[in-house]
C-alpha cells in the first residue's frame, strides 16, 4: 500500500458489492465449486458470465447437482449451496437455520441465494441505466454548453421539462406494456435519469470553454469538434461522474420500487424489490428484513462513495460538512 494513502470505506464496500455481483454464481449455487471425480471439474464457474463459457459443458444445466455425481470422490460446495431458482416445497417458509441461512420463501427457495443473485440484477440495472443516462446527458449537455444560443435554449428548457416529469408514473406506464427484461428495464430507467447529468455537463463545458487551454488549442488550429471532444469534455467529466454515482443509487432504488409493484425484473430472476413484494402479507419476518437490508446497504455504499468523491473535488464543501 502506498504510505499516506488511506483505504476509504466507500471504495472497499464498493469492491465487495462488485465482487458479489460478478461472483454470485460462485457464492450461491447448487453446483459445487470444485468436483473431483475422474478429473477436476468446476461446475459453478460455468454460470459466471463470460468466463463461464470456457468451462461450461453441455448437459450441466440439466443435471441435479445436489445428488452425488457418478465417480464423485470429493466436492467443495459454495458458501450458500442453493441456486436462486431451486424450488423445494418441503422447505416452504423455512425459518433461518443452519440449512437455510436466511430462511426460505413461499416456494422453498433459499433466501440467501436469492439475495446474492439479486445483487447481480441490481448492479446490472444500476450500471446500464447510468451509462444510458450518461450517454444522453453528456451529449446534450455538451451540445448546449458548447454551441450555445438556440441549442442551449432548447436543451435547457428540455432539462427543466424533464425534471418536472413525474417519471415514476411514466416508467410504470411504459413498463406495463413492454416485454419484461432486465436490459430493457435498465435502458428505460436510464432514459429518465439524464437531465441532472446534462445540467452538470453543460455548466462544466461552459466554464471550460473560456479556459486558456481551450484558447491555446484553438490557436493551434484545432477544429470545434476536436476542441470539444479532446480538450473540453475530458476535463469536465469528473463532476459529472460524481453526479452519476448518485444517479446509479437512485436507479437501483427505482428498479426495486418497480419490481416491488410487479413491473420490473421478471420472475424467476430475483430482485430485492421483487423479494420484498413477495414478503408483503406473508407474515414471515426474515422475508421482510433481509432483502431490505441488502437494498439499503447497497444504496448507502454507492452514496457514501459519491459523497467521498464530492468532498475530494470540492474542498469548500468538506469545510462546510466536516
Amino acid at each position: 500500500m502506498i504510505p499516506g494513502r488511506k483505504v476509504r470505506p466507500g471504495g472497499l464496500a464498493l469492491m465487495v458489492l462488485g465482487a458479489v455481483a460478478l461472483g454470485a454464481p460462485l457464492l450461491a449455487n447448487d453446483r459445487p465449486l470444485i468436483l473431483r471425480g475422474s478429473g477436476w471439474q468446476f461446475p459453478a464457474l460455468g454460470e459466471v458470465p463470460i468466463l463461464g463459457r470456457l468451462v461450461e459443458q453441455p448437459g450441466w444445466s440439466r443435471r441435479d447437482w445436489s445428488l452425488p455425481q457418478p465417480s464423485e470422490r470429493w466436492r467443495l460446495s459454495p458458501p450458500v449451496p442453493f441456486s436462486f431458482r431451486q424450488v423445494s416445497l418441503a422447505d416452504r417458509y423455512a425459518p433461518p437455520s443452519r440449512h437455510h441461512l436466511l430462511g426460505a420463501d413461499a416456494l422453498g427457495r433459499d433466501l440467501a441465494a436469492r439475495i446474492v443473485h439479486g445483487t447481480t440484477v441490481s448492479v446490472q440495472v444500476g450500471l446500464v441505466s447510468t451509462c444510458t443516462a450518461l450517454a444522453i446527458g453528456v451529449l446534450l449537455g455538451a451540445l448546449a454548453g458548447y454551441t450555445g444560443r438556440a441549442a442551449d435554449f432548447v436543451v435547457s428548457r428540455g432539462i427543466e421539462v424533464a425534471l418536472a416529469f413525474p417519471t415514476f408514473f411514466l416508467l410504470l406506464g411504459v413498463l406495463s406494456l413492454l416485454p419484461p427484461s432486465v436490459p430493457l428495464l435498465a435502458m428505460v430507467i436510464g432514459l429518465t435519469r439524464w437531465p441532472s447529468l446534462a445540467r452538470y455537463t453543460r455548466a462544466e463545458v461552459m466554464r471550460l470553454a473560456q479556459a486558456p487551454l481551450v484558447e491555446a488549442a484553438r490557436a493551434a488550429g484545432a477544429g470545434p469538434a476536436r476542441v470539444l471532444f479532446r480538450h473540453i469534455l475530458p476535463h469536465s467529466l469528473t463532476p459529472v461522474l460524481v453526479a452519476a454515482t448518485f444517479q446509479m443509487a437512485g436507479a437501483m432504488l427505482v428498479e426495486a420500487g418497480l419490481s416491488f409493484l410487479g413491473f420490473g425484473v421478471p420472475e424467476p430472476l430475483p430482485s430485492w424489490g421483487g423479494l420484498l413484494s413477495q414478503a408483503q402479507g406473508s407474515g414471515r419476518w426474515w422475508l421482510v428484513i433481509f432483502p431490505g437490508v441488502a437494498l439499503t446497504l447497497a444504496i448507502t455504499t454507492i452514496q457514501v462513495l459519491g459523497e467521498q468523491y464530492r468532498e475530494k473535488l470540492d474542498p469548500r464543501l468538506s469545510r462546510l460538512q466536516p
Partner: protein
Amino acid sequence: MIAYLFRRLLVAGSTLVGITLVTFVMLHLTPGEPSPGLNIETRGPDQAIIQALRSRYGLDRPLGLQYLDWAGRVARLDFGRSLVDHRLVRTRILERLPHTLALNLAALGIIFTVAIPLGALAAARRNSTVDQATGFALYALYALPSFWVALLLQAGLAVGLGWFPLAGPASEGAAAWSPPARWLDGLWHMALPVFCLSYGSLAFFARFARANLLEALASESVRSARSRGLGPGRVLWRHALGQAWIPFLTLAGLLLPTLVSGSVLIERIFAWPGMGALLYESLFTRDYPTILGLTVISATLVVAGTLLADTLYLLADPRLRRPAQIP
C-alpha cells in the same frame, strides 16, 4: 421579471404538451388494443362488434387526429369513460384526488416544519453532539427505501403492537361517527403513510438547510450583524435564515415529482384509495383513458406546484426583479 415569468410559463406549457404526447404515443404504439367488456372466449370474435367498438372509441382513426381530438377534450378536463366500468374518468380521478392531495400536502407540510428547524439547530451547534447525531440519523433515513420502511412499520406498529391501523383511509363504520371522531380517525390512518412519504425528503431537506445556513452564517452580512451585538438567536433566525431560505422554494418545486412518484408505492402498500392506487389498478386492466387522465392530472399538479414555487422565488429574491440579471 416578465421574461423570467414568460420562460417559466413556456416550460410549464411544454411540460404538459410533452407529457400528453409521450403518454399518448407510448400507449397507442404498443401491441394489444383494449377490447372492453368483451368476453371473446364464449362468443367468439364478432368482427362487426369489434368494428363498432373501435369506431365508438375512435380507435380506427389516424393517431395524430386521435391525439388532437384527445388534447382538445383534455383541455376541457374531459378524459372520456373508463374502459373498465364505463364511468367518467374525470369522476373516477376526482374521487381519488382528495386522498392523494391530503397525503402529499401533509408530507410537504411536515417536511418544511421539521426540516428547517432541524437544519438550523444542527448549523447553530455545528460539530456538537446534536449536530453529529442528527447528521448520522438523517443520513441513515435518507438511505432507507420508503417502501421497505412502510412494510416494517406495517408489520411492527400495525400488526405487532396494534398502535396504528394496518391500511385504508378510515376505520370500519367510521362514516356514522361524529365529525371530530371521523377527523381524528382519518389522521390516525394517515400517520404511517405520511411518515413513509416524507422522511426521505425530510432528511435531504434538513441536510440541505444545514449546509445553506452554514454558508449564510459565514457570510459578511451575518458577521456584521454579530458585530452590531445581536444575539445568536436573532442572528440565526433573522439574518442567516433570511438569506438562506430562498433556495428552499426551488427545492420544494423539485420535490413534488418525487412525492407524487413515491405515493404510488405508499398508496399501494397502505391500500390508500388515491391516484397512485388507481394508476396501479388501471395499468393491469390497460384502461387507457384512465391511465392517460391520471398522467395528465398528476403532471398538471406537479407543473402547477413548480410554477407556484418559481413565482414565490421571483417575489422573494429581489435580484431576479432587475432585468439586467436575466440571461
